[in-house]
């Protein structure tokens, strides 16, 4: 019982059929993470294919408009495929190759992780199948076609609530039926150990760069770093190298949908309770009998009833703070950033922008905040138009 624990959270709660494969994955990762050749290849992919390091952009107009702390945007939206997801996927796909796998499978919510996985699979000659909730394939039809262009097979998942959690269920089921040649490229800092660790390590490049960049720009650490949280991969990547810096506030923004007091939200820390699901002990939105609750957010990428175990632990020990942000606040922030800085960000990332609009004015001009702008917003334009009641014909 003690593997992959973050305080009381984490663990390996999966069917016996997968246990040897998970142990094999852990051993392989422990070997390759210290292998100079693996690290050279990964760095080459990140720098020369994905476009790292990503910019740390000083949002001067936003700073002036809000009249408080200086605001910096960590531009993960500028990565190849348009989000932070590529950081983890290149690492895991390269690991799959080294392990002798010929096929990768993955879940996706908004489609960002699916597109990134399909991209890496195309580049590294891996067969690729993506599982996506039927509701999300409808919401994100362009991303479905994008994955197919990249050579992946997309399976719409019609079980359960037909969203991200069901896509995870179905990918796990697929993995149990074909383990020997297949790696499940999990998209967030969740699931059974070693996934929360592997995904965090591959995403921690975000805060490794950001920490150096802010010291270069400001000569001191930021007062706060802010990121949106569904499963929590961009947030974990953004927090990780600041955890030891106790004066840096770590703030995760959860999807509050129509509000935390309604039954239409996905705010796990605000509304969830301890549970064991999708391979991990953590917090989950659930009923009194432990049935996982249907959740809701305008953002398909945050529409998940749980949170990664390391976030659950950071919450328990009070090191990170998790705040709810509604659909309305996120859409306002999406439009605000577009008009103010000329950047159309993902509606997921807009949850972080929304919180900073409240936070920055309360802080001093000699302090700074970094927002992890986890993805670009092209995929969300149609949904935002719908939200505003605008009829656009694609």
């Amino acid at each position, binding site marked *: 019982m003690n*593997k992959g624990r973050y305080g009381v959270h984490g663990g390996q709660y999966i*069917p*016996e059929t997968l246990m*040897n494969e998970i142990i094999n994955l852990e051993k392989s990762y422990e070997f390759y993470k210290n292998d100079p050749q693996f690290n050279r290849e990964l760095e080459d992919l990140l720098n020369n294919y994905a476009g790292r390091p990503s910019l740390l952009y000083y949002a001067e107009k936003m700073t002036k408009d809000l009249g408080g702390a200086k605001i910096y945007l960590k531009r993960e939206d500028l990565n190849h495929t348009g989000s932070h997801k590529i950081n983890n996927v290149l690492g895991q796909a390269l690991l799959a190759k080294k392990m002798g796998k010929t096929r990768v499978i993955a879940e996706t919510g908004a489609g960002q992780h699916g597109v990134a996985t399909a991209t890496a699979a195309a580049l590294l000659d891996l067969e690729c199948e993506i599982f996506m909730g039927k509701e999300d394939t409808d919401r994100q039809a362009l991303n479905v076609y994008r994955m197919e262009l990249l050579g992946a097979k997309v399976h719409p998942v019609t079980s*359960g609530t037909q969203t991200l959690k069901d896509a995870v269920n179905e990918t796990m*089921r697929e993995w149990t039926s074909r*383990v020997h040649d297949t790696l499940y490229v999990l998209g967030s800092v969740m699931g059974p150990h070693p996934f929360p660790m592997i995904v965090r390590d591959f995403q921690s490049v975000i805060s490794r760069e950001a920490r150096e960049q802010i010291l270069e720009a400001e000569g001191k650490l930021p007062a706060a770093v802010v990121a949106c949280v569904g499963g929590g991969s961009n947030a974990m990547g953004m927090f990780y190298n600041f955890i030891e810096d106790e004066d840096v506030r770590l703030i995760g923004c959860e999807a509050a949908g129509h509000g935390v007091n309604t039954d239409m939200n996905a705010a796990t820390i605000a509304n969830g309770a301890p*549970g064991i699901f999708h391979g991990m002990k953590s917090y989950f939105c659930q009923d009194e009998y*432990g049935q*996982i609750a249907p959740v809701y957010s305008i953002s398909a990428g945050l529409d998940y009833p749980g949170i990664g175990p390391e976030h659950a632990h950071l919450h328990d020990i009070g090191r990170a703070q998790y705040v709810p942000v509604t659909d309305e606040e996120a859409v306002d922030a999406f439009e605000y950033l577009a008009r103010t800085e000329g950047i159309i960000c993902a509606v997921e990332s807009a949850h972080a922008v929304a919180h900073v609009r409240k936070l920055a004015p309360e802080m001093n001009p000699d302090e700074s905040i970094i927002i992890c702008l986890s993805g670009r917003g092209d995929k969300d334009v149609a949904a935002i138009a719908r939200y505003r009641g605008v009829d656009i014909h694609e």
Partner: protein
Amino acid sequence: MNRIHTAFETGKAFIGFVTGGDPSIEKSEEFILKMVEAGADLIEIGIPFSDPIAEGPVIQEANLRALAAGTTTDRLFELVSSLRQKTQVPIVFLTYLNPVFKYGYERFFGRCRDCGVDGIIIPDLPYEEKSDVAEHAGACGVDIISLIAPTSEERIRRIAENATGFLYVVSSLGVTGIRSEIKTDLDSIMKTVRQYSQVPAAVGFGINTPKQAKTISRIADGVIVGSAIVKLCQQYGDDAGGPIYDYVKSMKEAILEK
């Protein structure tokens, strides 16, 4: 000692599964008594879960039907209490860890003891994570039924040596559901199991026809059938009692054939 050992005392066992509360608690009770009447030696009752990751489509849908009908863990405890007025057949629950965790291990297994539940199968509880749950279950005389998969290999020894009640040997990769053919080398898995454990071992996942049941019963102590029975619940709804009786009878007869 609980009742599980009695299932294996008179020869090869037939183990039948229904999802509790599909289509209703009352009907589950009727179907279970029909299975017992037809010769089932042990009954598995599924506590429905919103996200049953080890199940194929047939049992997934049964889970959703049962939940939609208002089934709760408490109502299934009441079902077992009611069954215990009528039968001493060994009964085990099958569910996922979250409903048990959320109920509270101590409270859950205390109710198992009080209502007459003999064991529990938890597909998302592997050996490494079992100790905490096993401690509470053991204190209440409830056996944790461990699973062995076609991929378990060198893990079989540790699982078998620590087994309680019976061992659930998973016949195939993937999720539950009817299969036309079982390709796993069950012979060699069973040999390894016997080497390390005295606990009876039953095989499940994919078994559907009397012919398959007969073949499996040659090498195992019991045959577990789930999806094929749940499919009858789906097909006949409230009227599934008769078809379930006939089906279980045919399976049990095939197992007993020399």
